[in-house]
């Protein structure tokens, strides 16, 4: 998993918010549960405020 996070880190650049969001998804997915939509949307709602799409 560390490797995955390292590669994501190198892609997001300065977008630390996106990094944290994706970290959360990676942790969530490593248990590979069946349901996901609510979880994803809830995480998006939390992270979208303050996200600067230009980074």
């Amino acid at each position, binding site marked *: 998993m560390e490797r*995955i996070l390292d590669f994501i880190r190198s892609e997001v650049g300065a977008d630390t918010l996106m990094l944290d969001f994706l970290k959360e998804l990676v942790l969530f997915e490593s248990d590979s549960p069946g349901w996901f939509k609510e979880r994803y949307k809830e995480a998006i709602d939390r992270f*979208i405020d303050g996200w600067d799409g230009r980074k």
Partner: protein
Amino acid sequence: MRITKLVMRNYRQYIDCTIDFEKKARRDLHVVVGKNGVGKTNILNAINWCLYGNEPHLAKDSEGMPVGNVRVLREAGQHKKVIVSVELHICLDKSENPAFFVRNAEYRLKAGEETPVKVGEDFSYFTRDNSGNTKIYRSGEASTYVQHFVPITLREFFFFDGEQLSNYFKEATGQKISNAIFELSQVDLLNRISARMERVLSDFRKDASANSPQIDEARKKYENDKEKLDQNKEELKTCQDQIAAAKDEIKRLQDALADYPNVEAMVERRKQLDHKLEDIDKAIKMKKLEKASKLYTSSKFTMHMPAIEQSIGLIDEKIAKGEVPPPIDPSVLEGVLSKNVCKICGAKIDTAAASRIKTLLKEIRTSKKVGQAILSMNPYLHRIKEELPEIIKEIKILGKDIADKQKDHKFTFAEKEQIQKKLEGFNEEKIVAYSKDLKKYEKLRDDKTERAGFLKSIIIELERNANESKKDWDEELEKNKKSEGIRNRIRFCEKAVQITTAAKNNILNDIRAKIEIETTNYFTKLIWKKDYFGDVSLDSNYYIHLFHKMGMECLGTISAGERGLLAFAFTLAMHKISGFDSPIIIDSPVHRISDENRSNIANVFAEVGEGKQIILLFTPSEYSSEVSTVLSNKANQMMLKMDVASNSTCLESYNG
């Protein structure tokens, strides 16, 4: 993750046997030595049976036999049950929490049956959580945990037979390797994130459409264009996979056919020659019959020719004399006799005259009959005389024809014999089948390549369309103030998808590059011809390439032993790069490796065993001094022994 213990009860040669895999100092290296037939390979089979329910390394004479110990099954008697059980105890990660997998099969000897039959089977996974509570998972859930331990798609990289290694690059296709790398690198997690993100994105896009019909229209157009694009991309991927698979097959078949040049052409030629010989034989038979018939006719005429000639002479003479046909018409004399009056002078015919006329009439009648016969046979006799020389000529021609055809037969047969000799020892059917398959796959490759080219050009067009319609949609969204929130969410999701996809591709490329380097490193350590080989590379289709130091590709020309070492180096590289911590178990690891090169391999085992559990199963001859000298003070050594009394195998410590 490591195996701590294997417990086998009533499984094949093992009535009650426990193998403990204790670490020795800092190494997790284990050696089990056993003669052939004692159950060495069945340790590997036991682990496979426990985890996956099958035994991929079963000896031929065990196929079809029940999994349970035959003696125990037979002695159990009617209706009594026997439980065959294999427990695989493992230690997960660094937590040291014990866990084990167990598979039980129940056998009963039914009435009237000679062999006990399996009446049930169950599979479970036992584990303990951090609070010390035991958790039990059964069947499908238990199998999920097997996938965390050693996924079935990867087991051939973890549990394998040394004999398989030398065939590895003939059977491990690019497709198989890419699947394995995909699984080992765990990028499926990133795949899942981007796929799920796309679905969330789709929901957001639908929500945005609800704000205005123009947005909805633009969304529908975009989704329609995107769907077409994705379908074609999907088809292109399928095409490319099919091309890769066809190339794998082509390579395999070309390797298989490399030693049999032109067999297919020779077999085809031989078939043609067989047909030709058949035709020639038929023609010779026909001509012989024709000749025989002419011999009959011509010999008959030739033998009789003097008689024929004489007869012709006599007949011609009679005709010349006017005796044939007779000069007097008998009907005139018949008329005279019936009226008793001479037709010429009209005088009455007396008795004497009548008698004379009757005699003359008889003579004339006879003469007429003879005349008729003579006139009838004459043309035939003449014709025989004329035709005979022609028939004799025809016989000579037929004789020559037959001789020519016999010569042709001789040469054709000789050519066929030559081909037959060349084909001796080949399994023609197999080779012809390979050649046919090769052509089939070459055509498939070519057809799919053409199709892929076509799809690529369509995809360019479709991508342009999808980008245009996306742009239009974004513009509609921009225009609509109410959609700002949703717009942001959409952008956020799109960015997340972009990042995870890029990360996935980078991981795969990175892994591929690292595997190349590690495979080269391990191979250099393992191989004895250290100055001969250069680098190992893994191309974009995941084909392995091995290069000579001078730069030429040489995978196709190395020995079976070298190929086995390359496969082993590749497997070790896969393990190292993947980060997958599961143990490696190898049966007959030095199969096909000559004695003097075994110490290289033993040293690599010792090195790898410092960071990873390795279990090696040797026969006594394989565990030669070259190997045991290196491993004896680094490995936990055990020996299998067959107990003659109980006809079962048990474990002893190795005493060299």
